[in-house]
């Protein structure tokens, strides 16, 4: 609680609350960030699951993974700034906690997949467990966006 109060009182959080025009830009940057994540990850997941078969995974996976990673990094920074305006309220917001948990699970899932890169190599067989992880990834990121949007609609 104390650390949340300290974050609330931090100079940048106060500035973000007071300056009416900054928050919408941070908000837009956050949307762009997770738009990158979902766009790149969903394309990669669907390729693993069997769509876009004419495009080699060995070609698609590196740029899509990197774009997703950049998106995650930007989403974390912008998300932290958005969180800082009302940390105590968000820490008690159910959809927010679900969203953060889902994002953490999505990141862990992606790191696990990245740790065994056989599926990305040319001509490599995609195992059932990799496909299952891709399906889980798709589900997690979609639900993360939905629960994130839900934050604003509970008291």
């Amino acid at each position, binding site marked *: 609680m104390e650390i949340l109060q300290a974050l609330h009182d931090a100079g940048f959080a106060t500035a*973000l609350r007071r300056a*009416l025009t900054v*928050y919408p830009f941070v908000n837009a940057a956050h949307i762009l960030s997770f738009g990158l994540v979902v766009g790149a990850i969903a394309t990669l997941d669907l390729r693993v699951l069997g769509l876009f078969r004419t495009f080699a995974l060995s070609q698609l996976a590196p740029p899509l993974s990197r774009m997703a990673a950049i998106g995650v990094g930007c989403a974390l920074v912008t998300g932290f700034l958005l969180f800082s305006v009302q940390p105590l309220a968000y820490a008690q917001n159910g959809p927010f906690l679900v969203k953060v948990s889902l994002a953490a699970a999505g990141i862990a899932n992606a790191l696990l997949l990245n740790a065994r890169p056989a599926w990305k190599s040319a001509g490599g067989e995609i195992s059932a467990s990799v*496909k299952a992880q891709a399906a889980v990834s798709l589900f997690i990121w979609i639900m993360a966006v939905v629960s994130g949007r839900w934050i604003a609609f509970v008291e």
Partner: protein
Amino acid sequence: MTLRFSRPAVLAFAGALVIATTAFAHHGWEWAEEKQTNLEGTIREVYIGPPHPSLKVETASDGLWTVDLSNPAQTTRSGFVEGSARPGNKIVILGNRSAKKDQKLMKAVKITVEGKDFILYPERMPK
């Protein structure tokens, strides 16, 4: 295991998601009662800032209410800024209560803090 998604299935899923996430809009007034009422109480919390300024107001016999003000720019324009109200101040809110009877949520049109008026939605003021 091979998974294939037909194009209509993917489109239908995307469409359903869009509907699911936009149907429940907190903005506007449709979710609130049509008639305006007063709510009286003591301010417990004041939040001024994005995304949405709001108050927590303790009433004498109906518990703690959340009062949504206008968006940050409109709230500032009404004159309600940091320091305009603090916990412990008496407040009267004119506005629309949530249509859900069990939801202690109200959208303010005008608030009166210790006798001083702040009109958030001039166009919605009673004639």
